[in-house]
């Protein structure tokens, strides 16, 4: 199998047709391939997120990650964009969904797209993945330790995040893979158990894996919470899951 790919920053039309930055990594010379929307973690649109996109491309998927913080400080460094987004109170769910819709449309427009779309998100992106699976037309979703899908108190409902994703579960329209760390506090094992209960109640197609030695962010190679063995098995689960649903 060839591992050729090409990658770089592009502009896409996001929510309200806003031009936003995005990172696209595409396989080269491998015929029709599935598309993967990559949703970056709370720290922002960083080096390791781009590496994740390239990893998908090497494995034969076109991966696109929109920079959800771009419009808060266009042209600034990614850390400064993240800080500006935080100052603004965070990314509203509605705006994020608009950006994801734009990114998915871009993936569908690629010449070598096979018609299938997967979504994967890390940390806050995991929550946004769950939301995407419940609101947009996609074929498979991977939630990597998304906190805030299940909320503990009403004060977690804000103008930016007006509905807890768990309350959108009835609308989920694709299979869901969940990858969690048992030492995480958000989502905690109790949150994950609640998600399983609600998904089962609604008869949804899902599979969850919780790694006993991992906390939050175990895929994050540039951060102290990276946990090699959990991440390696997690990647294995992702390849298996997308192999079944995005071929």
């Amino acid at each position, binding site marked *: 199998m060839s591992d050729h790919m090409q990658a770089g920053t592009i502009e896409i039309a996001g929510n309200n047709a806003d031009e936003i930055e995005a990172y696209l990594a595409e396989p080269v010379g491998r015929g029709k391939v599935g598309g993967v929307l990559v949703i970056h973690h709370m*720290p922002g649109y960083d080096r390791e997120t781009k590496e994740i996109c390239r990893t998908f491309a090497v494995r034969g998927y076109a991966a696109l990650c929109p920079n959800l913080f771009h419009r808060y400080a266009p042209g600034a460094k990614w850390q400064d964009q993240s800080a500006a987004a*935080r100052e603004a109170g965070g990314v509203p769910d509605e705006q994020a969904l608009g950006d994801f819709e734009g990114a998915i449309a871009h993936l569908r427009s690629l010449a070598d797209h096979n018609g299938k779309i997967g979504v994967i998100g890390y940390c806050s992106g995991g929550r946004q993945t769950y939301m995407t699976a419940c609101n947009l037309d996609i074929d498979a979703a991977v939630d990597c330790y998304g*906190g805030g899908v299940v909320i503990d108190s009403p004060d977690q409902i804000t103008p930016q995040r007006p509905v807890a994703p768990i309350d959108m579960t009835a609308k989920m329209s694709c299979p869901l893979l969940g990858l969690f760390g048992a030492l995480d506090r958000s989502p905690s094992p109790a949150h994950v158990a609640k998600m399983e209960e609600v998904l089962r109640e609604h008869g949804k197609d899902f599979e969850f894996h919780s790694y006993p030695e991992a906390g939050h962010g175990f895929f994050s190679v540039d951060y102290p919470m990276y946990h090699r063995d959990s991440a390696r098995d997690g990647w294995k689960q992702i390849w298996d899951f997308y192999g079944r649903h995005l071929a």
Partner: protein
Amino acid sequence: MCTYIAETDDVKATAYAHGEWMDVHRTVVSMDHPYKVPVEHALCIDFRTGDPSRRVAVELHPDDARRLAYSILSALQR
């Protein structure tokens, strides 16, 4: 844990970095993933100037942040 914990306050202040003083108009205090300090969650203070690229950011171990808070209050009470 990905938190959405952030407290924002308007302030009249100045901060010094890279050889110059800057006017600070807002602070954002958050408890979240740090970029540099090697802990899973840090108390982060962002001193905002109105220009996203000109800011002063501090990440503290939670224990150090608590001590700093006590020190500030102690100094203010004297």
